[in-house]
């Protein structure tokens, strides 16, 4: 995962701009390729039995897997805070809590739109938030 996340940074043109501004040589271009999401777990989405990890991959993966738009934007934000680029991946973060994740999903944040309960059910969100929050409330 870490290796991939560095590639994310390297491939996105705007990240190159970050390097340029810091005066470092721009890294070589690498191709951002498609990251398959986990399938949506079978069964009743209102009482999902899927794991937080697979639900995160399927419900949030269009933006938050490597090469996703959310990952790209967060990578730049994390770099600006002096953190390593892999912190652009939500799955690498240790500072998230479940309540925060839920609030961002339903209320949106900056470029992230609010997600409705068809996109992510409350039951799915519980598990995703628990997974990203690593058990923290």
């Amino acid at each position, binding site marked *: 995962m870490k290796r991939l996340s560095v590639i994310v940074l390297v*491939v*996105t*043109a*705007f990240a*190159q*701009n*970050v390097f340029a*501004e810091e005066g470092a040589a721009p890294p070589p271009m690498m*191709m*951002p*390729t*498609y990251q*398959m*999401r986990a*399938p*949506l777990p079978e069964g009743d*989405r*209102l009482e999902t039995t899927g794991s937080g990890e697979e639900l995160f991959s399927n419900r949030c*993966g*269009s*933006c938050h897997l490597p*090469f*996703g*738009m959310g990952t*790209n*934007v967060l990578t*730049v934000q994390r770099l600006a805070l002096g953190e390593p680029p892999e912190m652009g991946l939500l799955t690498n973060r240790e500072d998230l809590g479940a309540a925060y994740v839920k609030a961002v999903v*339903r*209320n*949106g944040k*900056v*470029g992230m*739109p*609010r*997600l*409705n*309960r*068809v*996109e992510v*059910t409350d039951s799915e969100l519980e598990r995703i938030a628990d997974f990203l929050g690593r058990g923290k409330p």
Partner: protein
Amino acid sequence: MKRVLPPNLTDREFDLALKAFAKVVGEDWVLASDQDRSTYADIYAPGPEDQWPPSGAIAPGSVAEVQEVVRIANRFKTPLWTVSRGKNLGYGAAAPRLPGALVLDLGRMNKVQHVDTELGYCVVEPGVSFFDLYEHLERMNANLMMSVPGNAWGSVMGNALDHGVGYTPYGLNARHICGMEVVMPDGGLMRTGMGAMEGNHSAHLFPFNYGPSWDQMFSQSNLGVVTSMGLWLMPQPETSLLLSMSVPNEEDIGWVIDTLTPLKIQGVIEQSIFVPSWLGKVVLMGTRKDFWDKPGRMPDWRVQEILKQNKLGFWTVGVRLYGDEAVVRAKADVVKRAFKRSTDIPMEESWWRQGEPVDVMDPSNGVPSAVALQMGDWVGGRSAHLGFSPVVPATSKHVLGQMRRSKKLIEDYDLDFYASFTIGGRFCNNINMLMYDRDDADGVRKVKALFDELIDVTRKAGYGEYRTHLNWMDPVAETFDFNDNAMTRYTEVIKDALDPNGILSPGKMGVWPAAYREHAQRGKHS
């Protein structure tokens, strides 16, 4: 978002309607809390979101449930606003044109019903996203290629039904719809094309009906709810080759179009060819303040500096050729020869061969990505955009005229110019991206006034839009003014005949049912 009732309904009546819907879809799929309403609002709204407020959303899980929901909506007179995934960002997202309409969210119906690898088509339900279909095709090794929009977060169906644009040879998405199943405004069910015959084997192959054809009647439409749709898919080519170059000057778009259009019409180039201006590249490189930290449009000298620093031209030309290597090679030579007549700039070649990884940042590869949404970060704050999207003939005369006209106006309003021309055949879709910070009330006012004026001057010059945001559905409909807007009047006669209660998507593309016609914003702008 607080509750806004559908027109003419009391709280009690509305609650009764919600109860009736809940009996059909289950309480959990009636989404009518304040938070639910906010999640269906237009997050890119030019102005307050509550200008286009939904009263809530209903999410049926089957065709039978859709039919029952439509019948109940007729009974309680609760207008429905149909979306497949509702990611129509820049055009209103999932929000309804009529305040208080209930969003009919079909996102739960997300099965890829069928893929035919031999004849190259799929049958999808509304909630199938571009990512879902891509992964489905990959997992079954279908060897078929999709046509994807820049923002591929949405649905295959909603995009095609809204006349969405992709960048492969199948880029005119609505053209590749074949055979639909549709819930009628009275809750009845019909199938179009050969599929109108029970068990017909050609339901998604032959593009016409026996008799008048209806498939296109349900696109950009409020005459039915599409519950499944056949869509042709292109066979995965053996190779593809991207020929690219940057052309330095604004006016170069003229000869670029005159070079590309004949090749497109002859079939040498098969794809819908996307030609973006420089800002299309730069929005993905950071935020505006990284490049220019003052309000108002970037001065020309700074633009030139940015282009130089980033080795960009004013326009980027990227032509992708698809097929067997020998054929692609031969076509590439034809394309290069054609460009040679106007420029010495070499075309860069970048080959792709089956089995190699595919660059997701380039939608001409047919691989879904939502990376284009990063431009939502450009302006800063809660940034958003609108697309002003006229259709122009694909010749230098019309394209240069359109470019100069809109550029001048956009710059008169002190905004940065960002346009693209996509050659889809004998025409171009010209998208002018107007970006703003939603919390900057003055900026939003300015963009709205600009949009009004763009519609007017573009109409006066003889062009109309192919698609627009909720706020301008009526003014744009009015620009189609032949014989006292005969076309809209005709559609409204059909609308009233099929949907006497006016419950399906009132106001979509300026088509209003009698029941709500007083809500039309005719003769006035934003």
